[in-house]
């Protein structure tokens, strides 16, 4: 059923595609190529020359316990952010789906966090949870809850997960809500007549029918947690304490721009690229097969 457009002028299609291809080339292929090139080099301490070292950089980082630890940190961080962001959004959307009055206002309000820059979100959460100035941290101390993300790695992880997930909830919410509203009302009514209560209707009818949305959001959220949480981590914990919140992306930055180890940083970027490609391919393959009911 695909409709093919034919052009009379042979150059026109290329001309039309040129802007997009140029953007992709300049902002993706060129830097990616640079990273790949850099990953085979080792510069001298003053950055004046570089020496070809083959796969030495890769061998080095893959045997570096700190790098492997960062892998584990990223896995934990990504799973938590994805799960929290999606679960909260699903819950809120399920509630909002039943709201009739004021739903427009509610939706607008809940979308706001998405418009907040990651660094600003990080600062805002710090104002609430930073042990010495945070408002919530103050009351937690009053209640006798031990909370110190500046010293405790787990607290720090919890903090960055919260802030990162909070920012993504609105995005997920919008998609879940749209998905739920696309479920035909008569299906819900049929299930109600078949004897299913609210809870059961949700898990046996609505949730399965949302699976395309859910899988789409899973990909988006994992990619988000991997790459777009840098700002949050940087403003809140700077990857610390210790290296408790140093994700792979943060480590690329820390090793390359702070540690000036460009070769290692480039090799890490290349590995990240591969990880993301594989992740995306697997997920989209799975989606293709699974979500068409």
């Amino acid at each position, binding site marked *: 059923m695909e409709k093919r457009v034919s052009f009379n002028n042979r150059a026109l299609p290329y001309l039309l595609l040129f802007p997009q291809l140029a953007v992709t080339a300049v902002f993706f292929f060129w830097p990616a190529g640079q990273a790949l090139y850099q990953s085979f080099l080792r510069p001298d301490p003053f950055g004046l020359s570089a020496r070809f070292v083959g796969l030495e950089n890769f061998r080095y980082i893959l045997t570096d316990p700190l790098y492997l630890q960062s892998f584990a940190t990223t896995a934990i961080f990504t799973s938590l952010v994805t799960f929290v962001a999606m679960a909260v959004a699903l819950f809120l959307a399920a509630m909002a789906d039943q709201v009739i009055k004021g739903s427009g206002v509610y939706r607008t309000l809940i979308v706001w966090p998405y418009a907040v820059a990651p660094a600003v979100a990080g600062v805002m959460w710090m104002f609430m949870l930073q042990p010495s100035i945070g408002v919530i941290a103050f009351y937690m101390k009053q209640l006798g809850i031990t909370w110190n993300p500046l010293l405790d790695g787990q607290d720090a992880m919890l903090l960055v997960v919260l802030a990162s997930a909070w920012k993504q909830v609105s995005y997920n919410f919008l998609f879940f809500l749209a998905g739920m509203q696309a479920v*035909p009302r*008569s*299906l819900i*009514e*049929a*299930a*109600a*007549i*078949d*004897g*299913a*209560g609210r809870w*059961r209707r949700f898990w*046996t*009818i609505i949730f*399965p*029918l949302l*699976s395309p949305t859910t899988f789409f959001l899973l990909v988006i959220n994992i990619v988000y947690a991997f790459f777009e949480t840098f700002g949050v981590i940087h403003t809140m914990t700077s990857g610390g304490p210790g290296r408790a919140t140093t994700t792979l992306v943060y480590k690329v930055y820390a090793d390359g721009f702070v540690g000036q180890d460009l070769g290692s940083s480039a090799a890490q970027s290349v590995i990240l690229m591969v990880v993301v490609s594989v992740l995306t391919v697997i997920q989209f393959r799975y989606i293709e097969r699974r979500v068409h*009911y």
Partner: protein
Amino acid sequence: MSAIAIRDVRKTYGKTEVIHGVSLDIEDGEFIVIVGPSGCGKSTLLRMVAGLETITAGTIDIGGRVVNQLEPRERDIAMVFQNYALYPHMSVYNNMAYGLKIAGFSKADIQARVEKAAAMLQLQDFLDRKPRQLSGGQRQRVAMGRAVVRDPAVFLFDEPLSNLDAKLRVQMRLEIKRLQQSVGTTALYVTHDQVEAMTLADRLVVMHDGIAEQIDTPLAVYERPATTFVAGFIGSPAMNMLPAEACGADGLKLANGEIVKPSEAPLPEAGRQVTLGVRPEHLEPASESAAELMLEVSAVETLGADTLAHGHLIGVSNGDGELVARLPGNAKVNAGDRLPLAIEPGMAHLFDAESGKRLGKDASGARPFRSKASASAEA
């Protein structure tokens, strides 16, 4: 199996009342069809019985139990939706088994029931398929299967055939009727299609603007429509409606000044404005001298079995004189002809011009035969 009693049920959305007090008694095992144009409130009434809409006032009683406050699942009903509402992610088997699983039937019991229903509906070969792999008629049967397996007290049908093509609709109509008769479950069926209504119903409820205008057997509704609305809605082509003025014993004066005297009809008092209703099939060609109505033919539709002559009363060019006559298929009529017509004896209907209500209890159209149900409905 159960009887339903609907007592003065009303439905209000905001300040607008859409159902103005409908009462209806349904006997156990009866097939009731609610028919009316779109927006008349028929679906709303059905959804109130189902529990999908709240009841603003009045009561609905299913099997001796007032169900106003009960959830749909507590009402022991099954419903077939217009768009089938099959669960798209479940196989045909699971679609039918869903309600049974929730009700807590054993696996073996569920299987037995689903297989029995599948056999009844010729769905055995499709149990593993997903709804999207089925044709419209098959989906419709799955929807019915889902209703049948639960063996509910009442079947509710919400325009179940309107998404099917004409041929399949006729076939499914028969299947629904057969199915309902074989299981003997009380059924409430909503449609806007008068043929479906006439063929399926034990009794018809003709609704208009939130009011049940007439509740009676299909034949009684056809023969003695209670209002001009019912008269115009049931029957195709629609009944001819001619405004007239009663002139005492002389008969009725039509818009063109001619006097008609319907035989056997007790005539209303002189001066009263009435509507004379005659079905197209009750007009027959007559000789010039015996003619009661003179039709100036403007268009002829040849249907094979019948020929429809459209036109207007001579001397009345506005809408008041429009007339259709159903003539035998071999009738020789052409546009432009003057066609003398007579009303079949006893087949004229008289309605009050203002209220639209039928005049005289059995004024005309009534055959000696009257069914029990229609007699009791009128009492």
